């Protein structure tokens, strides 16, 4: 299987250790019995073909070479210049594909004229630094307004969408993680800009159908930004084993504030209603849920329980206005807080299975050992005790979206990770 040689070498180089001595064993190591890993150690390195244990001893005892002992600046790899070409459109498109600068779909070539037009979508100067982003273990890269504009053009954005794209870029959140577990991201727009640029929050807001250009292209721009501005390199530093189809343009929409009786999501997070804000969420998957039949409570709880329990993970409901209308008629569910509390209380898993979950081992157990709550208490529970693994009602997010044609919605294993001002980038 994959020894991750390229990832190891590239990450070490970028962290200033280009000659660090690495020895590889077959994968997976995780969850393998002693009989299997014994063979790994007694066998050969899958990269070099040499005996693993002899390599380990050599790595620890062979004197450093002059290259290894060196310290100081490393000459940078030659990068492509700011302007590429002139060449034919066909050749340039192929170049972008070959360089790994696209999502595999056709792009709008970022000519100087098109980028200049995109830059008119903001009052900020092209050379202003927007922020830094890293999608994985590699060092974050810094980028300017112009670099973001180039990617926005490629994605097919109109200049009026550009403040939204800049806000995403300024958030420092990549649209995925290089994790082998294939993360996805979601971004929700609140405030006046959603209507100004024609974002869809109603029928088919999450779909490619109809007049969804603002949703589709702004979401896609986030993917291209991650690809080109964070330094993530598929095949080198991206190892999502299956990948995630949501990565094409992410889950990207505006909340249907007009159809919601509740305060908009960004107001819950401290913004004013008249501010335009983008809220960012991280997770992997989503599934349908409903609040129409008499069985809906049981169904919704089963849905939320089915998500992979991970410390710090949340639950996010994207509810149709019809669901909200049903809830408003029920005194137990007529506020977001009541719904969140109910889901938190009922989304449970027994302690035995919670501790056996891989993410619990990696993230909850170390914190439990350091006395961090609630993990310290959870790890003391008997096997049959129920753990409310969402951790807090605050980790249950509810966002209204859809056209009111069906009392269905989506439940996602997505956590809120942060927000960014869109107004700042107008």
């Amino acid at each position, binding site marked *: 299987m994959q020894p991750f040689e390229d990832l190891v070498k590239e990450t070490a180089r970028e962290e200033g250790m280009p000659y660090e001595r690495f020895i590889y064993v077959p994968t997976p190591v995780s969850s393998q019995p002693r009989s299997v890993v014994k063979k790994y150690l007694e066998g050969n390195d899958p990269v070099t073909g040499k005996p693993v244990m002899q390599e380990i001893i050599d790595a620890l*005892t062979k004197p450093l070479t002059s290259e290894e*002992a060196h310290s100081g600046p490393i000459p940078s790899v030659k990068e492509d210049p700011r302007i590429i070409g002139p060449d034919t459109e066909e050749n340039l498109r192929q170049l972008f594909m070959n360089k790994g600068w696209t999502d595999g779909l056709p792009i709008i070539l970022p000519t100087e004229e098109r980028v200049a037009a995109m830059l008119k979508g903001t009052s900020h100067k092209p050379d202003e630094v927007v922020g830094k982003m890293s999608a994985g273990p590699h060092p974050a*890269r810094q980028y300017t307004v112009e670099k973001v504009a*180039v990617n926005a053009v490629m994605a097919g954005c109109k200049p009026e969408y550009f403040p939204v794209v800049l806000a995403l870029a300024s958030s420092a959140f990549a649209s995925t993680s290089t994790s082998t577990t294939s993360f996805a991201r979601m971004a929700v727009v609140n405030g006046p800009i959603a209507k100004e640029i024609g974002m869809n929050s109603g029928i088919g807001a999450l779909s490619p159908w109809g007049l969804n250009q603002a949703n589709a292209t702004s979401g896609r721009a986030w993917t291209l930004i991650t690809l080109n501005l964070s330094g993530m390199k598929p095949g080198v530093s991206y190892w999502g084993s299956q990948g995630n189809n949501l990565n094409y343009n992410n889950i990207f929409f505006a909340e249907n504030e007009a159809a919601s009786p509740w305060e908009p999501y960004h107001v819950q997070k401290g913004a004013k209603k008249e501010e335009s804000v983008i809220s960012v969420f991280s997770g992997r998957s989503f599934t349908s849920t409903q609040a129409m039949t008499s069985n809906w409570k049981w169904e919704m709880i089963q849905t939320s329980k089915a998500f992979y329990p991970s410390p710090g993970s949340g639950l996010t409901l994207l509810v149709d206005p019809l669901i909200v209308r049903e809830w408003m008629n029920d005194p137990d569910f007529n506020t977001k807080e009541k719904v969140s509390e109910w889901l938190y209380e009922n989304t449970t898993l027994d302690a035995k299975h919670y501790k056996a979950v891989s993410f619990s*081992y990696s993230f909850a157990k170390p914190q439990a050992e350091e006395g961090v709550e609630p993990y310290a208490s959870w790890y003391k529970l008997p096997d049959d005790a129920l753990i409310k693994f969402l951790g807090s009602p605050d980790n249950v997010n509810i966002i209204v979206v859809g056209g009111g044609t069906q009392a269905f919605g989506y439940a996602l294993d997505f956590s809120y990770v942060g927000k960014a001002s869109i107004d700042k980038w107008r």
Partner: protein
Amino acid sequence: MKRHVFLLAAIFFAVVPLCLSAGGSTAVTKTTVLNPEAYPPPITQLPMAPRVDTLKGKTLYIIDVRFVFCEPFFEELVDWFAKNMPDVKTVWKQKAGAYGLDDPELWAEVKAKADAAIVAPGH
């Protein structure tokens, strides 16, 4: 004969303009575009730790970064040294916190007490 000449001339004049026209439409337009990539930060190479001449009689720290359920790997590694290089003192330490988090206290301990160290494993 004159008629033939006329026909040839007609064909010639009819064809030549068509060729010229076709040549004009295939004139390749070239364009320039902007590079979409951000440039990486400068890298400074860190000096590697000096090596020991031999592991005999030395203290070797074996550091578990705590990736998911990898204890058997470390048990086997420690056992291998016990069986094959019994004069090496191995110290198996689990890094504090999740695998992606730093543990400055452990690195200080390694500097103070270890002659050599292995950091492992990945997946």
